[in-house]
């Protein structure tokens, strides 16, 4: 079995990767929604989502649960709301307004989601693996023009918005759609110019090359700090997030482009918004923060990681376990707080937090055990001689670690999206256009000019 797996490894990965990566992104969505709700709560001094729960009445187990001790209730930190949202969206009537153009109205919400699922295809999730049976690419669609493809795809998502807005046949929807397209055009320019400076340095359109350059030199954010900020601001505008969320506005244009949408079609638009946040976060991590590389140290590339796999795995598992134990401490704080309270369901609350604490402690210990196992078996792996290959275990573990690194970086940026949304007031529409055309564009042009001159001089000097 194992021999067969190793013999057909590239084929298996080639089939599994295009299915796995969008699935992973979809699994990030509940986390992002939870982050948004909980983040909104704690930033505004509220408690956030805390009602929807899975109730388990396990009274039949003697000694543990009886009539005096009520059952189990799991709220999963508000994660249950995602389930209820989905059930609600799916159980609503598939209503099409009588004044809408039915065909386009139905198709439109699918376009942004489709784009959100397609864009991860060009992002390198782990370093290329050279095996005895051929190379496995960390990119689903390895191409030299990955960045161009990415921009082409992400520009398509506005079609879903504009098409939905137009086919709704309502003035509020149309206004939202027009705003969205105008913002897209304005900020696509400065976004492209911000990346151009980076491209001059990397010397390639391939995202894989971008990560490789960053692993041999330093992260893009250090060579292009202004480009990074420009790209970040443009990304906020592209995803129509606060402070650029003029495409929807209760006080001006009701719900904006999705005014006439309801049920699961409305939720598709929401899904697309969060998918874009996830993809945008991964993209900015790839372009500016070294992608799947661990730290901005020159020479710490994929082969270095494979060589020192055991040490890195141990260090990462310790860091992860510390973070998890910190989380357990927060949970225990909640538990103490609830135990001291006067709620009628105090028992259930205390038991609930106890279970969370136990689960996350177990997770932390499991992480430590995995790290220890990796350290014991893969402490030092000699670089294979020319013509030879790394063992499949080393390659697979490296790929998994790199994948988790890029997801972790992306989650940090996803939090930034949430954080900024609940901090800044939204811009007025004319202020957005002012910022886009009069500030960002000029700064991006000057940045590009300076980058070009400096890059040329440095390359001449070498």
């Amino acid at each position, binding site marked *: 079995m194992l021999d067969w797996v190793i013999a057909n490894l590239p084929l298996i990965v080639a089939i599994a990767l295009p299915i796995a990566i969008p699935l992973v992104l979809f699994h990030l969505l509940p986390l992002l929604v939870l982050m948004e709700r909980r983040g909104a709560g*704690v930033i505004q001094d*509220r408690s956030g989502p805390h009602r929807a729960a899975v109730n388990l009445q396990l009274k039949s187990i003697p000694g543990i649960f009886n009539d005096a001790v009520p059952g189990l209730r799991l709220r999963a930190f508000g994660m249950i709301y995602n389930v209820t949202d989905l059930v609600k969206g799916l159980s609503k009537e598939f209503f099409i307004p009588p004044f809408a153009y039915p065909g386009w109205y139905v198709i439109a919400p699918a376009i942004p989601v489709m784009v959100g699922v397609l864009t991860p295809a060009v992002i390198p999730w782990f370093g290329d693996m050279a095996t005895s049976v051929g190379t496995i690419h960390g990119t689903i669609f390895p191409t030299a023009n990955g960045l161009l493809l990415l921009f082409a795809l992400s520009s398509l998502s506005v079609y879903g918005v504009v098409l939905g807005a137009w086919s709704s046949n309502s003035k509020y929807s149309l206004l939202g759609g027009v705003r969205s397209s105008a913002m897209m055009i304005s900020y696509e320019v400065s976004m492209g110019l911000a990346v151009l400076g980076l491209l001059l340095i990397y010397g390639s359109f391939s995202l894989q090359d971008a990560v490789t350059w960053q692993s041999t030199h330093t992260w893009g954010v250090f060579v292009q700090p202004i480009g990074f900020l420009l790209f970040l601001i443009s990304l906020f505008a592209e995803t129509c997030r606060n402070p650029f969320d003029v495409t929807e506005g209760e006080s001006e244009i009701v719900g904006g482009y999705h005014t006439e949408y309801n049920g699961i079609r409305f939720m598709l638009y929401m899904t697309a918004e969060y998918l874009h946040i996830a993809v945008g976060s991964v993209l900015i991590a790839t372009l500016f923060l070294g992608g799947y590389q661990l730290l901005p140290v020159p020479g710490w590339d994929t082969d270095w990681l494979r060589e020192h796999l055991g040490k890195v795995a141990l260090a990462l598992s310790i860091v992860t376990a510390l973070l998890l134990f910190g989380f357990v401490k927060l949970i225990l704080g909640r538990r103490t*707080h609830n135990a001291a309270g006067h709620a009628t369901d105090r028992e259930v609350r205390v038991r609930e937090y106890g279970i969370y604490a136990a689960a996350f402690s177990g997770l932390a210990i499991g992480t430590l055990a995995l790290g220890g196992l990796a350290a014991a078996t893969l402490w030092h792996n000699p670089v294979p001689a020319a013509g030879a290959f790394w063992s499949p275990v080393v390659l697979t573990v490296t790929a998994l670690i790199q994948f988790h690194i890029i997801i972790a970086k992306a989650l940090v940026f996803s939090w930034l999206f949430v954080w900024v949304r609940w*901090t800044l007031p939204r811009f007025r529409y004319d202020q957005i256009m002012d910022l886009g055309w009069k500030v960002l564009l000029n700064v991006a042009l000057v940045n590009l000019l300076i980058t070009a001159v400096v890059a040329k001089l440095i390359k001449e000097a070498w």
Partner: protein
Amino acid sequence: MAKVVPRPELNFWERIYFIEIFKGLATTLGHARKGLTDPAHFPTVNYPEEKPELPRDYRARHRLMKRADGSPRCVACYMCSTACPARCINIVAETSPDRHIEKRPVKFEIDLLLCVFCGYCVEACPCDAIRMDTKLGVMVHDNRADFVIDKTKLMDWDPKDYPVDDLTSQSAPGGARHADALARLQSGSDH
């Protein structure tokens, strides 16, 4: 004349807005940190499971005070229903068998759907017969008729939930000072 509200003058660093963004982010991060690590600082109360501590003078559903023998203190003087801006109190009086008290209520109804919980009835009452200190802020019934509460419901309260001197603290009929006065009256020492 329109009042001119002076706008605070922004300095250069505030006008470029960029640094202010980071200040704002620091503020919200502080709140987020506090919210995650210190659950006690939330003003939120998980309502049905946790009840907020209501202030002593919170105006909730009414109750009718009782004399020592359990009859209502109310003398059916109509002061409360006269004071009521919502006209939600409906009293029907009859002659009291007690010769010291002129009238007593046969019917004392409050329509809680009309009531605006202003507390004027409590202030108007000359003998402290009606109070709004039950702390019953939430009333749930499935038909309108149940929101009209009668004398029995208004007098259905447990003395354990209220201060001990509740029954005897007042000078109204049934109260301690009234009892003293009655005793003096009966013994003839008042004259």
